[in-house]
Structures are given as structure tokens and as C-alpha cells.
């Protein structure tokens, strides 16, 4: 195999493993330098004609590059923790935060359970907006978690299956969540309810909660390849 074809195989293999372009180009450049050094040292063209006999097969180098790149980050060394356990735990925490914000916002508008002080106009407006706000408190954490974990997967260059597994977990947990909030009015107390369960047929909100992380995952798989800048920028000697 010629050196150009071998280097191209390394380049293609690394890109297929979703390693960043800058990282791949640096690796290929150094391998090319290494071959030139070998040729100069041995005064033979063997290194250029059969690079895999001396430097290793292209697949071996791609596997080493992919493995070493993943080892740089905690998420690469422990993908089960980062892309299975963490997404499962992150959603309840994010939902607790978003529901707290909703309750805080309602109180700020004068909907305190003990003594609501909101005007009739505010009350009417808030009642109209409430379903959207409740849906937002459920869907926003799902979107934030899906984007964050997909970006982490792209940065770590882990296998596609981890990103898909993570999005599937977010879709299942997210799709099963439902919540209801009622505002207090004179004579009645407000309430917040949160739980898991799927009605048949599922509500449009739950379908959206299920589909959105999957769509984000597919989109990130499509655009994420080779978009991460290399972290191993080489400085020039002064």
C-alpha cells in the first residue's frame, strides 16, 4: 500500500470515528514526518512503499487515536456514567429547578397561596399562559439536557451509540413526565403536581417531550462530526 493511500486510510478512519479535523490533520502530519525520517534514516523506500509494516496498520492507528482521544475526558473513560446514569439523574434535578422557578415567578406576580394579591387582569392573563408555562418547565430541561449531553458526546468523540442511548433515555424519562399547576384564587389554594405516566393515546405534549431529544440526537449526529476544535494546539518555538 502506498504512503498516500495509507495516510488517507488513517484520515478517513479517524473522521469516521468522529475525531476532530484539526486533531486528525496533526496526527497525519506527524505520521508523514515519521515516514520521511524513516526513509532518510534507512536510505530505503520501504517505509514509503509499505508504511503499515513499520508504523502499524491504518486500522490499528485509528483505534489507538480514537481510544487515546476518548481517554482524555472523564466521560470518555466512563461512558456508562456520563451517558446513561447522568442523563437519568439530571432530568429530575433540572425539573425541580424549573418548577421552583415557576413557583417563584407565580409568587412574584402575586399568586402566593396564602394570600393571592394578583389583580383580575393579571389573574386572567396568567391563567391563559399557565399551560404553556407548565409545558415549558417540562420541555426546557429535556432540551437543555439533550443538547448538553450530545455536545459532550461530540467533544469526547465517543461512539454514536452512546449519544443515541443518552437521547433515548431522555426521550423515555422525558416523555413519561407530566405536571399540573393551578394558581391560587380567593378561597382556593394553588397546587403543583408532578409525576410519571403515559395516557393512551399520549397527549401532544408528551409526544413532543418524547420526540424532541431524539430529534436533537439525530441532528447532532448529523452536524457534530468534525466540528470540535482540537485541544492540542501546538505552539511555535519562540
Amino acid at each position: 500500500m502506498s504512503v498516500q493511500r495509507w495516510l488517507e486510510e488513517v484520515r478517513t478512519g479517524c473522521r469516521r470515528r468522529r475525531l476532530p479535523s484539526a486533531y486528525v490533520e496533526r496526527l497525519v502530519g506527524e505520521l508523514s514526518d515519521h515516514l520521511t525520517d524513516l526513509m532518510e534514516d534507512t536510505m530505503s523506500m520501504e517505509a514509503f512503499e509499505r508504511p503499515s509494516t513499520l508504523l502499524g496498520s491504518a486500522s490499528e492507528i485509528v483505534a489507538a487515536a480514537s481510544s487515546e482521544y476518548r481517554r482524555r475526558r472523564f466521560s470518555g473513560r466512563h461512558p456508562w456514567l456520563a451517558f446513561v446514569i447522568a442523563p437519568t439523574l439530571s432530568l429530575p434535578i433540572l425539573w425541580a429547578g424549573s418548577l421552583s422557578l415557576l413557583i417563584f415567578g407565580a409568587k412574584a406576580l402575586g399568586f402566593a397561596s396564602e394570600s393571592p394579591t394578583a389583580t383580575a387582569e393579571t389573574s386572567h392573563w396568567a391563567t391563559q399562559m399557565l399551560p404553556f408555562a407548565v409545558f415549558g418547565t417540562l420541555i426546557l430541561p429535556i432540551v437543555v439536557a439533550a443538547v448538553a449531553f450530545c455536545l459532550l458526546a461530540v467533544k469526547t468523540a465517543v461512539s454514536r451509540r452512546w449519544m443515541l442511548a443518552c437521547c433515548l433515555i431522555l426521550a423515555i424519562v422525558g416523555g413519561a413526565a407530566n405536571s399540573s399547576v393551578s394558581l391560587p384564587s380567593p378561597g382556593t389554594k394553588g397546587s403543583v403536581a408532578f409525576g410519571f405516566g403515559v395516557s393512551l393515546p399520549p397527549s401532544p405534549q408528551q409526544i413532543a417531550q418524547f420526540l424532541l431529544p431524539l430529534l436533537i440526537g439525530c441532528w447532532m449526529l448529523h452536524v457534530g462530526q468534525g466540528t470540535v476544535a482540537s485541544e492540542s494546539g501546538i505552539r511555535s518555538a519562540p
Partner: protein
Amino acid sequence: MAERKSNPAFLNGVPEMLILQLLSRHAMHGYEIVQAIKAGSNDELEFGEGCIYPILHRLESEGLLTATKELASGRTRVVYRCTRRGKARLAKSISNWRRIADAVNLSLEGGGHVRSALA
């Protein structure tokens, strides 16, 4: 000639130690590192030479090495140096390696006792 395969044991922490040891003495580029490892081990350590670069890149990202582009032997090359953190990691790696090697040697020497006890 058959394609050269990596020695799995070599790829399990040992290359890091050898690389850090060599670079703690003086700065080198990738080709020099490979030649130094081969010469230092009397060609006993067989590995795909190209696999050294991903390891160098990871060590650099962990702050154990620095990489600079320098003019060496008439060409611009990436030259690696061991950092203070790299030297600390090297000391720890050598200590671990000696402990494990001693334990393995001890176990090999004491193998007869185990057999006689079981007999």
C-alpha cells in the same frame, strides 16, 4: 513482511512511562522517541510506531508534555518536552511499576510453595 502488531502489554501504561522517562532527560520529536525506545529495549518492545503519536497527544492534553514546532535537522517538527507535572507522574509510575514487578517476581519465585501446599 507481515504487518507489525502492537504488543498489548506495551500499550497498557508502559509507553507513557517510557515516553516520560525519555522526555524528562531531553526534548525529542516522535521519531526520536520511537528510536530511543527501540534502542533502549534492544528491540524487545514491538509496537506499531505510529501508535506513539496518539499517546503523545493525550499526554500533552493532560499537561504532562508540551509540544512546540521547532526547526530540527532541516525540517519543522513537533518537539515534545516533559513538564513538571509529567516528571511527578513519571516518579509515581516508576514506583508503581517497581512495586508490581517485585510482586510478580515474588509470586513467580514462591509458586513452588503454593503447589506443594495444595498437593
